[in-house]
């Protein structure tokens, strides 16, 4: 009796869910704080793709800590492309056979369409006068940044602090580790993603300084203009590449390899790079860099290669179980 009504309702629901037209579709699995960035980028790409191929395209988004995302993909999250903030996380996919071994050569600039650096966001008027990494180790300073084990953002912060420590201590690893240990001990909570750390700092009012990508410090300071938060880019930081890759294992199955490649290539176009720079990220595009020159202070950016001898060494010496990170991360 009522069964027919239920059937009709189910049919209506199914119809409502079926897209009117078959569409090109891409799942971009990304890091936590790139939510707003890709929300700005994707519609512009959709237009460009429509003009080029005549097809509509939907870009689906998933955001969380970069390493968590890599693990989800290894567990079956059907990503077509990844836009991460750390090479280690793409490498993890390469090791799992999801991404080509030579993914760095697939796109310009080591497959990194933009970059940033860990920077600080402090409370109104900078009451604790936090200017540089050495201030983070002070006893009176509470620091907030995400968990280096789940978040690429947090890992860059750890590495940047380490790089700064090495330089201050003339390459003395023991003194550097003591310095980093002090900073880690000043962190009351390690959230699993960059955005959760921002929430902790902004909404929960925990900590004197948030360490996160420069892009996020700018965006949050602007969004919470009434709070008077001050973004500070320290004089020395670590060059943070944001690598992208096509997850071939999945795109071959989905038939999206071409679209995925096109999407990632488009991120290098002046059009996309301008949006990227507006979002507070630094780019390698000279024209765009010149346009936004006053927005980004000239600071010294150390590189992973120069300081640590590359990501392989970081993985084996720092990130491996029982490695240096585990030794200084005493409150994990």
């Amino acid at each position: 009796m009522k069964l027919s009504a239920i059937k009709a309702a189910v049919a209506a629901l199914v119809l409502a869910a079926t897209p009117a037209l078959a569409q090109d579709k891409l799942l971009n699995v990304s890091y936590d704080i790139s939510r707003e960035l890709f929300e700005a980028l994707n519609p512009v790409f959709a237009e460009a793709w429509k003009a080029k191929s005549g097809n509509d395209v939907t870009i689906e988004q998933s955001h969380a800590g970069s390493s968590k995302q890599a693990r989800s993909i290894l567990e079956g999250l059907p990503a077509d492309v990844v836009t991460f903030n750390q090479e280690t996380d793409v490498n993890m996919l390469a090791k799992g056979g999801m991404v080509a071994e030579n993914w760095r050569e697939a796109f310009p600039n080591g497959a990194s369409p933009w970059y940033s650096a860990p920077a600080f966001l402090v409370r109104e008027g900078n009451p604790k006068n936090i200017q540089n990494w050495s201030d983070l180790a002070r006893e009176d300073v509470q620091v907030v940044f995400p968990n280096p084990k789940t978040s690429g953002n947090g890992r860059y912060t750890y590495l940047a602090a380490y790089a700064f420590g090495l330089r201050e201590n003339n390459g003395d690893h023991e003194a550097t580790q003591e310095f980093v240990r002090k900073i880690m001990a000043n962190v009351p909570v390690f959230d699993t993603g960059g955005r959760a750390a921002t929430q902790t700092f902004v909404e929960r009012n925990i900590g004197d300084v948030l360490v996160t990508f420069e892009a996020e410090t700018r965006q949050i300071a602007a969004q919470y203009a009434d709070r008077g938060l001050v973004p500070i880019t320290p004089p020395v930081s670590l060059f943070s590449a944001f690598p992208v890759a096509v997850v071939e294992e999945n795109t071959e199955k989905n038939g999206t390899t071409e679209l995925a490649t096109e999407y990632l290539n488009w991120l290098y176009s002046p059009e996309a790079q301008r949006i990227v720079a507006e979002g507070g990220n630094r780019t390698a595009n000279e024209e765009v860099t010149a346009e936004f020159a006053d927005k980004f202070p000239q600071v010294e950016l150390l590189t992973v290669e120069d300081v640590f001898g590359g990501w392989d060494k970081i993985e084996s010496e720092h990130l491996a179980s029982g490695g240096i990170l585990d030794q200084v991360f005493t409150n994990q």
Partner: protein
Amino acid sequence: MTRVLLIGAAFVLTAVLVVVPLVYIFVQALSAGWGAYVANILDPGTLHAIWLTTLVAVIVVPVTVAFGIAAAWLLSKFTFPGRGLLITLIELPFSISPIIAGICYLLLYGRQGYLGGWLAQNDITILFALPGIVMVTMFVTTPFVVREVLPLMQAQGSDQEQAAVTLGAGGWQVFRRVTLPNIRWALLYGAVLTTARAVGEFGGVAVVSGSIRGKTNTLPLQVELLFNDLNVVGAFAAATVLTLIALVVLVAKTVLERRAGRH
């Protein structure tokens, strides 16, 4: 005197503990005005989350009801070895954290889990898609129908059914003509509870959803996602939809209780 004092305390405490948090959801959702509220509800991500949550409930509730009937029939009409084990398995999801359910599913159905390789070979997708969300929701809602129906079936005994069988009725006939009329209110009641729990599931789904915006985000996950997008008003707007569902559930529950009481 005691009476007035106790009733007063009951009202004040319930207002503080239950009513104000409920009202506050609407206050927050409307804090930026009706226009912003409507815009937040009509956000495609939120609309899709509403649709997905509905779909999950539409799949989960009938299956759980069918299971509940079968299990209640089995446990009330027959004694057999292993009966206690079955009851424990049915009850366990009630007191277990849904996060644990999610972890179990990841360890089993993840690509690197025990069945992961086999599932991938056969092109079966469970995690980070509808099947995983549905199955975890079934896990957490397993006990609800059985809990309502079993005690009733046990209390009513099997005499009526046995008489019907003796008179030559078949199994389905007995169930539809004799058992079902006796348990229908309890059954509906269990279905209502299941719906509430299915719609609101958060922890377990958080582990297996992959939080793809506009695709595998259920409504409770959408609330969290909007909150992390630093869109607090939007999060509360999405929350009002869940709250309204909860209020409908409550009304249905009250009505059913009265009906059941009369029978």
